[in-house]
């Protein structure tokens, strides 16, 4: 009597384990994990976020993120200094050897400037990411609500 319940539980557990997969793009020794941008309207700006893993023994860096759907793009870093939000322009985001760096709200981000169209939740945008050593790769980023 208890066995079917046990199996049902096991099935649920297994199903939940294969729930939504995190999008990962492997590119040489660089892994681009869970890239996404936030919803925004045409003409406005938005940020792209992702985790960059470096499985190699040599440090690399994200030096450019280009978006066909935006007029311009820049890499920025947001830092909270006390209660003040300070944003600075960066030439590159370093990815340490055998390490990782997260582009996330309140930290590093690639900003899409002057959007050519509305970005709605569920849409996909293309990004061409250029790394100092690994070179360029195109990834699709999901659009999500902030």
């Amino acid at each position, binding site marked *: 009597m208890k066995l079917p319940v046990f199996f049902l539980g096991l099935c649920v557990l297994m199903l939940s384990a294969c729930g939504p997969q995190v999008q990962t793009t492997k590119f040489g020794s660089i892994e681009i994990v869970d890239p996404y941008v*936030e*919803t*925004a*309207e045409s003409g*406005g*700006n*938005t*940020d792209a976020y992702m985790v960059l893993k470096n499985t190699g023994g040599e440090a690399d860096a994200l030096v450019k993120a280009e978006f066909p759907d935006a*007029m*311009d793009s*820049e890499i*920025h870093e*947001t830092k*909270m200094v006390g*209660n*003040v*939000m*300070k*944003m*600075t*322009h960066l030439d590159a985001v370093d990815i340490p050897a055998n390490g990782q760096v997260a582009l996330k*709200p*309140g930290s590093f*981000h690639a*900003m899409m*400037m002057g959007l050519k169209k509305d970005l709605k939740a569920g849409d996909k945008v293309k990004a061409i990411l250029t790394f100092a050593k690994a070179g360029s790769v195109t990834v699709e980023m999901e659009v999500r*609500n*902030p």
Partner: protein
Amino acid sequence: MSKNLLLALSGLVAGAILLVVVYLLLTPTTLNGTQIDPPKEVSDFTLTSDTGPVSLSDLRGKLVVMYFGYTFCPDVCPATLSKLNKALERLGKDADQVQVIMVTVDPERDTADKLGPYVRRFNPQFTGLSGTAEDIAKVAKEFGIFYEKKAVATAAKYLVDHTASVLVLDRDGRISLIWPFEIEAAAMASDLRVLLRKR
């Protein structure tokens, strides 16, 4: 008095006491943000929304949640507006007694016509306020908000550093609470409930 009646009465009393205790335990009385006590009086101001001028004095009777930011920076501003929306969702019907206002620290790029639709994307009840550079500077100073334009040699042309804290004004338009940028929606909603109970 019969024994049964006495038993029933004492049961009722015990039940009532239990209810009060549970109510007190579940009702937050402490604030998560930094309380300004006594609340700080501020002078009235009038800025421009895309539907016309808005004065702080128009909002007497409501709690006013004020945030200073700019739409060009799609980082901490959307995060804050999104959290404020989630906090109001938690309040349910009581959200009617709270007005969220975003004042731009970049009036050059954020005209009222641009700011209105931007803030309503997060919540249709949010108000976006712009004005002349002088008016914005005056309001920011009055509310203890720091902001500074920083030129950059890229397409962005300039970025604006700014205080990312959120101010909560009581029903009389006095600053009574300050939330740090890191605060979560649940803590905001809890604080708003505490302030709404004060009459």
